[in-house]
């Protein structure tokens, strides 16, 4: 039996050391590829995006929008349903799943800060989601054609960026759920609940409120607040409210009356990412494995 000599002197490790975060993120990415998670997600996004792109390119002549703008609007609608779901499916397992497999206890026995574990997992999952979104949607856009004008391409790029940001919000929410509970199945249940609430129920209730008020008596600041309180609405307003897309959707009319400018909406989405992440870090610091 040969002995392993003493390891080289190590730098003092902190709660969130960068090399540790990168190591954890790299492992998350590698496992994502090995699991075929990345492949499945990319194919799903590409298939749906291609379908929408090819079906959606028919009515372009009548509204005078570029074909890519139509794709952008279609994909943004797809994103609202699909990206939060994918993000929650990926992230709900992060802590609770490792706890069930026994690897969390082992990981915590290493010289690793708990903040680094949360941030590393988040970074790795965000990279996976960004890869799948850029590739899946990019294929759909290129299928429509590449010579479509800089304005349409920049709108498309903004939509992809916003989609990744929306994904980050739900990755953070799923990670928080995973940190708070003991069992993976509980985390999965919470994830489905979050998706239903933010993607379906909230908007139905919001619409109901608008209809009940006759569309007049609600003060604009209240409407703004209600839109900002749901990250999917902030995303909808950000991608569908501005520019050529605004003319293609009903959101343009709503966007005309709101004080929520794109920078504010981006800030709202960033806050929606940072807050659950911060809560996950706090909850994980208190958790006893």
């Amino acid at each position, binding site marked *: 039996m040969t002995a392993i000599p003493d*390891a080289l002197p*190590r730098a003092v490790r902190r709660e969130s050391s960068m090399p540790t975060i990168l190591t954890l993120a790299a492992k998350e990415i590698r496992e994502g590829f090995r699991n075929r998670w990345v492949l499945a997600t990319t194919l799903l996004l590409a298939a749906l995006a291609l379908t929408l792109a090819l079906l959606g390119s028919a009515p372009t002549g009548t509204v005078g929008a570029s074909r890519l703008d139509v794709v952008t609007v279609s994909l943004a609608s797809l994103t609202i349903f699909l990206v939060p779901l994918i993000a929650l499916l990926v992230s709900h397992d992060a802590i609770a799943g490792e706890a069930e497999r026994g690897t969390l206890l082992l990981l915590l026995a*290493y010289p690793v800060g708990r903040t680094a574990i949360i941030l590393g997992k988040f970074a790795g999952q965000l990279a996976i989601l960004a890869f799948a979104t850029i590739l899946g949607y990019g294929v759909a856009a290129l299928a429509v054609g590449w010579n479509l004008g800089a304005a349409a391409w920049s709108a498309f790029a903004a939509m992809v960026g916003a989609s990744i940001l929306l994904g980050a919000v739900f990755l953070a929410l799923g990670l928080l759920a995973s940190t708070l509970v003991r069992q993976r199945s509980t985390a999965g249940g919470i994830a489905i609940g979050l998706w239903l609430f933010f993607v379906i129920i909230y908007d139905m209730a919001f619409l109901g409120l608008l209809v009940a008020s006759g569309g007049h008596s609600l003060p604009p600041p209240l409407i703004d607040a209600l839109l900002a309180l749901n990250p999917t609405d902030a995303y909808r307003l950000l991608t569908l409210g501005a520019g050529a897309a605004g003319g293609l959707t009903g959101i343009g009319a709503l966007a005309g009356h709101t004080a929520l400018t794109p920078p504010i909406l981006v800030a709202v989405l960033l806050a929606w990412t940072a807050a659950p992440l911060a809560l996950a870090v706090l909850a994980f610091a208190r958790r006893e494995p």
Partner: protein
Amino acid sequence: MTETVALHGVTKAYGPIVAVRDLDLTLHEGEVVALVGHNGAGKTTQVKMILGLARPTSGTVRLLGADPAVDGIAVRARVGYLPESVSFHLAMTGRETLAFYARLKGVPLAELDRAFATVGLGAAADRAIGTYSKGMRQRLGLAQALLGNPRVLMLDEPTSGLDPALRREFYSIVAARAAEGATVLLASHALTELEGRADRVVIVNRGAKIADGTLDDLRSLARLPVQVRARPAGPFAADGWRRLADGSFETEVAPADKLALLARLLAQPGTLADLSVTEPTLDDLYAHFLHREAA
């Protein structure tokens, strides 16, 4: 001997459930200590407190001179741990998995080959863990615990599911580490396989320490009777002996009186056809301490 792990008056309660009760435990350099108790006796909770992953409700824990709940990140770089049940990602290879843990511990990746050779996984390092047998997965678990030459090595039920040959190999690796000055803590629910492997045995029951010493210490403390079985060749004075179905006789004798009895039995040649002496097993010893506690 230098102290590496010290617990003083440590109690850990989860709500109304007390997992560890007023525990004192000191481990030294170069020592192999077995922590023995039923499942649920509080062994894993003790290990978690030593690692700084659980804070004691009261009492103090020191690991390599530091409080692991405060300086955990720094001190854990010099500790190796193998949890009782850990399932590595099946689609990853052994090398990818060990490389991940080596990076976290700041161990150069150049040392991985030697780490695989130490545990006898050299040929399987680049295969997916899904193709490994139970014993190979356990070896990989041991390989990660040995990374970076830890000064304190804590192994939770390390030999469960291993065949006897692997078990012997496992203990020889552990003994080599202890000979180099590492402290080895083996948590186990079976005493039997620890004969000759552990310098010291700590028996815990329902969170409290009920015995602490070398196996010989524990034996002399317990004073369990020795079983003597004789098969007479002719007439036999059977006072105080039980007659068994095969015609032989059996009795129990205190360890101190054992040699006198044997001398008497062997004094007249030709009276006995056969004689066997059975020392109390480690399981008997374990049962004795548990029953004494319950009484």
